[in-house]
């Protein structure tokens, strides 16, 4: 998208100004790089303007300035406590999902019986609206972090299972035959061939799932929590403090984006070959 705009800009600018200097090109390159930031700033500006021009009250749509003000009105320690609580639950549920989903996917991909018996069950779990069963999970698992981690796990693990299975199944049949013709064990085949082949699939699922993990943690915190950004949003709206709730939403979105980037970096760092050639 970005590169397209630039090339369009350049190709239209170049014939008109053959003497286009290096300096101008540099400016254009910077504009290209800053484009997403500028776009975001523009949206915020328009948002602020609308709120002011129409004198929208905070309970309808808080202005960006009202959100920022309410965010800074609170002790940073409070933000840290809630963000940390949500992060812990998200990462806990996410880790649990990875630990369970990947071995499960290996089982499903390598056993027709297992995939025939377990897949329908997994689909049932996935089709169950977690928000609906969350209160039951909380009653069953009691107070503390476990029910929240479990709810996050439930929301997170299915995409990882499905994507990993697809990845494992994408292993070329020839390589499985090669492995068999070498007399190598199934375990070696899974470890040396199937799992590496699934890496790109696993990572695309991991990127989706990390954002789902945040959503899962927030859903769980809506249902039962004494801390966390989900709790904080419920708490703020219960006092009709809408700007404060928006500020928490922004923290959540930022957290989501950051974690998404972290997963992408981990992939680039550990498995550069699993990325398309041009994005390495």
């Amino acid at each position, binding site marked *: 998208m970005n590169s397209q705009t630039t090339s369009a800009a350049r190709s239209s600018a170049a014939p008109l100004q053959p003497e286009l200097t290096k300096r101008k090109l540099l400016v254009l390159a910077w504009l290209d790089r800053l484009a997403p930031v500028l776009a975001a700033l523009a949206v915020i500006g328009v948002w602020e303007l609308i709120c002011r021009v129409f004198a929208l009250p905070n*309970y309808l749509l808080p202005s960006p300035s009202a959100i920022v003000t309410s965010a800074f009105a609170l*002790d940073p320690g409070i933000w840290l406590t809630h963000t940390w609580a949500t992060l812990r639950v998200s990462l806990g549920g996410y880790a649990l999902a990875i630990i369970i989903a990947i071995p499960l996917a290996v089982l499903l991909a390598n056993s027709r019986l297992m995939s025939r018996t377990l897949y329908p069950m997994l689909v049932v779990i996935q089709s169950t609206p977690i928000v609906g069963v969350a209160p039951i999970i909380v009653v069953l698992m*009691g107070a503390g972090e476990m029910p929240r981690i479990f709810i996050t796990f439930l929301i997170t693990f299915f995409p990882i299972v499905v994507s990993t299975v697809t990845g494992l199944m994408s292993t070329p049949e020839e390589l499985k035959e090669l492995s068999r013709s070498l007399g190598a064990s199934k375990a070696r085949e899974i470890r040396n061939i199937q799992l590496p082949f699934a890496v790109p699939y696993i990572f695309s699922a991991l990127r989706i799932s990390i954002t789902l993990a945040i959503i899962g943690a927030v859903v769980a915190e809506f249902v039962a929590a004494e801390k966390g950004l989900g709790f904080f949003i419920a708490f*703020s709206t*219960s006092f009709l403090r*809408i700007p404060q709730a928006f500020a928490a939403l922004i923290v959540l979105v930022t957290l989501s984006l950051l974690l998404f980037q972290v997963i992408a970096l981990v992939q680039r760092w550990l498995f550069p070959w699993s990325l398309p050639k041009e994005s390495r």
Partner: protein
Amino acid sequence: MALRLFKHSLFALGLLAASTTAAFAADKIRWMNDWLPSGDKAAIYLGVEQGFFAEEGIEVEIINGRGSSEVVTRLAAGAADMGTGGLPALLQAKAEQTINVSAVMSIYSMQPDLLILPEGSPIRSLADVEGKTLGTATFSASNVIWPILLRSNDIDPDSVNLVRMDPGALGPMLAAGRVDGTINWITKIPSFAEVMQEAGKDVEVILWSDYGLDGYGLSVLASDRLIQRNPDLVERATRAYSRALALAVENPRLAAEALKAHVPEMDVELAAAEFEASIPLIVNDISDANGIGTFEPELLAKTWEWVARSQELALDALDPTSAIDTRFIAD
């Protein structure tokens, strides 16, 4: 023989160890509030902050519930030990299934339900709601009482357009004039007033208790398991809570500060105002006559009657006195 002796001495040792730990370690209770932290829940925090529970040898862990029925379920499931919840929710649950939870102390001897209206609303009395649009929280317990209250005042419930929504949307909807009024608890007046202020309006209220809704509301609940296993602990906890409640009534600001110590994002002024708004439910003619915390049989019967009517249950489906345990209230 030697083995037996060994076993006996081990047993004795174990007993000794158990008794010493019991003497030194505080009893722990998991206390569940019926909603997110707010000013009207401040008494329990005040009890903890003032050391009333510590003096009774109790360590308290406070958990937030999402409604009275959740408190009842969690207590029954053993996921919490004591807590606060509406007596009607407990009566309803007990009438429908075996729920091993009892009310050990009353907090509100009047019902907190009311209508919050913008200043100068054409709704001057309950009868004026005909043809109007009212907002209510989707899962509010008030929703079940509402039609009964209207019928007992000869108003057709179908004549009111009741819109259900998230509790957080009620204030904005009222301020934006999308609804003519909202169904709430008395404790929500301060935060609604805050939002309405932004719209340049003030709030008015119509109390349901003025139109015949009477009975016990918020009460201290305990799991029967705890009552049976350690009645002494329930008694001590109830005593500590009563002290805290009395002090909170006397000094709502102190209670609000105690709440803030636990929930740092709380606004002390607002929390104090919320608790103050709930005082008439705690201290009133009824409590003056019977004492705070008691369950007066006639009012208890009325509480049950409202529940039975709203849930279409037979009046003999439950003996309301079986839902309460009055041993723990100091006379």
